[in-house]
């Protein structure tokens, strides 16, 4: 890997994670929040795969597969919940989901 160090990939992962945090805090749309969460999961995966490559065994890549699996499961359930709440309150804005307050 000529000229590329481990930190190149880790900084890219950190950047993607921070943009995910930005997206989650900025968005009012529940699906926008989900987009930010997917970015953060991808950022973690970039780090896992980079460490896997630098350590020379595949454990990190296997973890990344489990993360991808969890991301798919999370997206399916989250979108089902968003659709359900949308039917309930006719809004996807996180500001309107106030009925769940204790």
């Amino acid at each position: 890997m000529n000229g590329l160090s481990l930190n190149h990939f880790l900084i890219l992962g950190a950047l993607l994670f921070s943009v995910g945090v930005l997206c989650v805090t900025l968005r009012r749309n529940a699906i926008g929040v989900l987009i930010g969460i997917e970015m953060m999961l991808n950022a973690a995966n970039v780090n896992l795969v980079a460490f896997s490559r630098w350590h020379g065994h595949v454990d990190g890549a296997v973890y990344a597969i489990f993360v991808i699996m969890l991301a798919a499961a999370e997206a399916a359930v989250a979108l089902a919940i968003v659709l359900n709440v949308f039917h309930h309150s006719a809004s996807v804005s996180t500001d309107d989901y106030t009925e769940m307050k204790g």
Partner: protein
Amino acid sequence: MGVQIAFWLFAILVAGTALYAAVAPKIVHAAFSLMATFFGVAGIYAILGSDFLAVTQVLVYVGGIMVLIVFGVLLTDRVPEEYKVVAPRRWLPALIAGGLCFAAIAGALKSTVWPISSSTPLGDATSTVEGIGRSLLTDYLIPFEFASILLLVVLVGAARLARGQVR
């Protein structure tokens, strides 16, 4: 040198499209920008020599999760005001949260010495498919089976949730 150019191209693609997905005024633009981000991350995996993960990323994220998100956007986008998804008063806290997060991680990366033996990747970039397959069916067999149970539960649960009220 070619690898380096490819890395910077994919890094710029990932960072730019992710940023646009975070701030795009229309949520459907954000969704398609996120698709480009997923492709860029797949390219990063390819640069890292993880051929299997690069393909899985395209299959699961672009083929599965993106379709789910676009369906979610299309099914919930009936309210015109919802197009303005970025609330102006949230800019400051969001920038502070994102900036602090990046500063913390970058600071930690700068001061950490990783317990890796060399500054270059170990091993040659051969195909990882065989190693991943062996790991999944030996060391990670129990998590693998739990993953299948989880996926089954999610399949049933998502169908039940999305169906709504049953009379």
